[in-house]
Structure formats: structure tokens, C-alpha cells
């Protein structure tokens, strides 16, 4: 969130800032208005599950792959799910080549934490043999176009890819894990649908779902991941500070918006029913 601020002109920035401070957004949205999601699943033949998700101009393609490995010693009967993000230089002149930078690490981590702490995935189902063999699920997010609020888009794309996935079922034999011929379906693995909801802040104005130009001028943002009833993670970033009252209100707004998105997208329709 630092160097990229240079990309749009100072005049443009001031225009966006001044309007925001008056409560007006350059794309005409109200402060508490969310952009539309578009989602298609199972677009990648090589992946076990996948989702192609757009939120306004932001476009992300997420795939699920798996491997079999040893469990962590302290969780001998639980599989593992890891989330990775790549901000492809394809997607924006702001993204540079090279190893993952702070922004992509943050994207992956916030989505990961939302999922992990919501008990989103029934990791005990991802065990083939206690202490010996568990599944490692890789949820890898690739940003194809950056139009702002990658985190919320990432959260939806991760869920879409997981729900649409289909993973070979293994059983333990003397020679190690073997395929039973059947598959797990994503919907059998998913407990809860945690959704990250992100707010931007500039001076004392707070607003929902920042677009890219807005992200370039804000002081900071806060993401609150929620399931139907509980907050499962919070991440504040940038140099904005918040009052306790603001945090409380944003919690309520997060529940409200997540409920609406959950209803609009109707995630379970993307379950992969093929055998």
C-alpha cells in the first residue's frame, strides 16, 4: 500500500479524497454499497476445484490442488489447508515480479485465517491414516485484474473453489495410501462459509468495499471475516486508527453484508456432483 500510491496523479487523488470526505465515491456508489460478484466454478480441468470470480473490475482465478503428506505431530489426525496468493504482474502495473510481497502475503493470510478459524473445513475428514498420511489442500489464488478489495474477492473465490472441488478418496494400505476409486466432494468438507468484509477509512470517513482508486488514497482498511453468527478474524492494515465505537459498528455491518452475499451467491449450488 505504499509505492503504488504514486501511480495515479496527485490531482486525481485529491479529487477522489475530497469527494470521499464529502461521502461521495467516484463510481457513484454510496458509502455502504458493495459491488456485484460474478462467479463461475470448475473452469480449470487440471485443478481438483476452481472458481473464476469477479468483484467489479477485480478478477481472480482460484484453484484447489492436493497432496498427501505426514500430519503435524500435534494434530496427528487432521489434514492441512494452505492458502497462497499471487498478484500477477499481468493484472496491474502496480504489481512487480519476484517473490511474494507484503500485499500478496497479506491477501493469502487474511483469507487463510478467515477460513482456518471458522472451522470452515472439516480437517479430520482429510486424514487417511493417523500419524501417517493426511491430505494437504492447496488453495491458490491468482489475481488476473486488480480492481480493489482483493481480499473479499479472494474469500469468495476460495470458497467457490473448495465447494466445487472433488478429491480422490484414499485408504491406508501396507504400501501406503491408495485410491479407493471414489471422491470426496467439496461440500462434504465444508462446515461454515466465512466471508471477509472489507472497509476503507480516510480521515474519519469509513466506507465499504474499496475500489482500486480508493485503495490508492485511503489511510487504511479493516477486514472482518464472519460466519453466520461469529466473527472469525479481523485484520487492520495501513496507518488509519479506529475508535472502539467504530469497530463495534463495523462488526454489525460485516454480518449484514456477509448475509446478503451468502444469499445472493447461494454457494452450495456450486457443489460438484459428478462422480
Amino acid at each position: 500500500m505504499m509505492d503504488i500510491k504514486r501511480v495515479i496523479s496527485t490531482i486525481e487523488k485529491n479529487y477522489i479524497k475530497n469527494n470521499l470526505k464529502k461521502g461521495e465515491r467516484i463510481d457513484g456508489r454510496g458509502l455502504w454499497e458493495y459491488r456485484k460478484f460474478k462467479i463461475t466454478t470448475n473452469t480449470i480441468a487440471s485443478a481438483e476445484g476452481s472458481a473464476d470470480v469477479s468483484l467489479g473490475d477485480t478478477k481472480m482465478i482460484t484453484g484447489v490442488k492436493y497432496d498427501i503428506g505426514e500430519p503435524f505431530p500435534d494434530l496427528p489426525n487432521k489434514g492441512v489447508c494452505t492458502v497462497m496468493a499471487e498478484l500477477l504482474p499481468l493484472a496491474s502495473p502496480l504489481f512487480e515480479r519476484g517473490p511474494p510481497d507484503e500485499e500478496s502475503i497479506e491477501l493469502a493470510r487474511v483469507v487463510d485465517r478467515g477460513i482456518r478459524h471458522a472451522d470452515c473445513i472439516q480437517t479430520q475428514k482429510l486424514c487417511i491414516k493417523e500419524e501417517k498420511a493426511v491430505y494437504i489442500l492447496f488453495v491458490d489464488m491468482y489475481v488476473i485484474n486488480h480492481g480493489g478489495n482483493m481480499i473479499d474477492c479472494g474469500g469468495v473465490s476460495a470458497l467457490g473453489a473448495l465447494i466445487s472441488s472433488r478429491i480422490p478418496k484414499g485408504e491406508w494400505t501396507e504400501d501406503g495410501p491408495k485410491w479407493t476409486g471414489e471422491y470426496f466432494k467439496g461440500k462434504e468438507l465444508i462446515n461454515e462459509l466465512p466471508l471477509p468484509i472489507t472497509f476503507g477509512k480516510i480521515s474519519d470517513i469509513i466506507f465499504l468495499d474499496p475500489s482500486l482508486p480508493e485503495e490508492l488514497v485511503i489511510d487504511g482498511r479493516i477486514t472482518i471475516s464472519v460466519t453466520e453468527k461469529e466473527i472469525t478474524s479481523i485484520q487492520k492494515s495501513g496507518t488509519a486508527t479506529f475508535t472502539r465505537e467504530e469497530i463495534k459498528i463495523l462488526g454489525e455491518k460485516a454480518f449484514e453484508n456477509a448475509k446478503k452475499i451468502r444469499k445472493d451467491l447461494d454457494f452450495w449450488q456450486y457443489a460438484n456432483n459428478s462422480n
Partner: protein
Amino acid sequence: MTLLIQDEYPKKLLREDGLRLDGRGLTDLRPIKMEVDVIKNADGSAYIEWGNNKIFASVYGPREVHPHHLAKPDRGILRVFYRMATYSVFERKRPAPGRREKEISLVISECLEPVLFLELYPGTSFEIFIEVIDADGGTRCASTTVAALALADAGIPMRSLVSSCAVGKVDGQLITDLSGIEDKAGDSDMPVAMTWFNDEISLLQFDGKMNQEEMDKSLDMAKDALENVYQMQLEALKKKYIQIQEGI
């Protein structure tokens, strides 16, 4: 540990009826779909579906060279970054770019450079970013093809388009446009690209075994396939300009 299901290849790649496993005749191309202007932030972009391959390409430039010391005082430079998504292949690819990706990047770059007028852009660079999100054989050819489209979409002056396709040999027979299985289990693979402004070959690699006669025949088959690919590229560009004119 290994994955539960092995990535196995059949013994025979041609069916009893002489057709290929996916039903194609020996010189048939797989279904190909192309579209330009698909990534809003890019100066130019394109998307291709070629069989099960799905590939995005975007172009940025001419712009300042970063890092500076790569800049050339007398001409622009072209840099190509070909990458594969982790989930684009059977066994998850590691996220960091491997040697193969760097090598293919160089091959594509050298193949496209002849059509550009880099001498007109001293001190600047053009970057082409290619992301393979689903792979099934022939990604370097499909990537070259879609990258040429993205350059055209960016409005960068070009001597001509570049088209690319592989030919090869399976079960002793010469074939056009190898699928993933044919590439891995077959005998020979030869990606070819042509620069249309001079009708010459600007990408040529070969691995396998062919005698001189087979090589000559393969080059002829490649020429035929490339002409088809070229027409599809022109169509994709035309569609965009029609849309612009129609104000869609």
C-alpha cells in the same frame, strides 16, 4: 508422498480407426477460442483456449525499464514472462518460476522480437506477461499465439502477427498439434512459429527422433496448421474492432 492417482499414459496413442484418442484426424487442430482486451489494467491483453489450455497474456509498454541497468540507449527491449499457475498441471507446480518457465520465456521473446520495431523505442521496455491457468500440451505455442494478439491489442506497431503450433510424431505417425498425452507419451514434439511478414520460421525446437524426410514433411504440416491459427487470430482482432465500431 505421492498423489493418490498417478498421471499415467496409454500405450497406444492412435486408435484402431486411425484417429487420435480425442477423435481428431492426424492433421486436425484442437478447438481454439481467442479473445482480445480481457484485462482492463493492461495496455493490451488477450485470452486463448486451445484444447484444454487456458492462457492469459497482457502487455505493458513502452515504459521505463526497471531495473534501469537493463535499458539500452539505442533501442527498446522486449521481455517475456511465461508462468504457469500451480493448479494448471496434474501435480501441483511449485509457485516459484522454474528453469523451464525461464527458458520458454526466452524462446517466446526471441520469436516475437523480429516483428517489433524496437529501434523506435530507445531506453524503454515492453513486457509481456503470460499466465497459463490450465495446461494440456503445447502451451508454448498457444502462449506465443496469444502474446502476439496481446501486442496487437496494445496497438504496438508490428511488422506482422506471429502464429505458432506444434507438430510431432506418435506411434510412428506425423501429427499436428499434440495434446498433453501425445506430448508426454509420444515420440517427438516440434513447436514451430512463423513471422508472417517474411514467411519465415522464428521459433523452432525439436525433441525426439525424426529422419530427414520426416522433418521435411513436418515442416510442411506446420505451415498448414499455422495458416489456420493465423486466420483465427485475425478473426479475434476483427471481432474487437467490430464491437468498438458498434459501440458495444
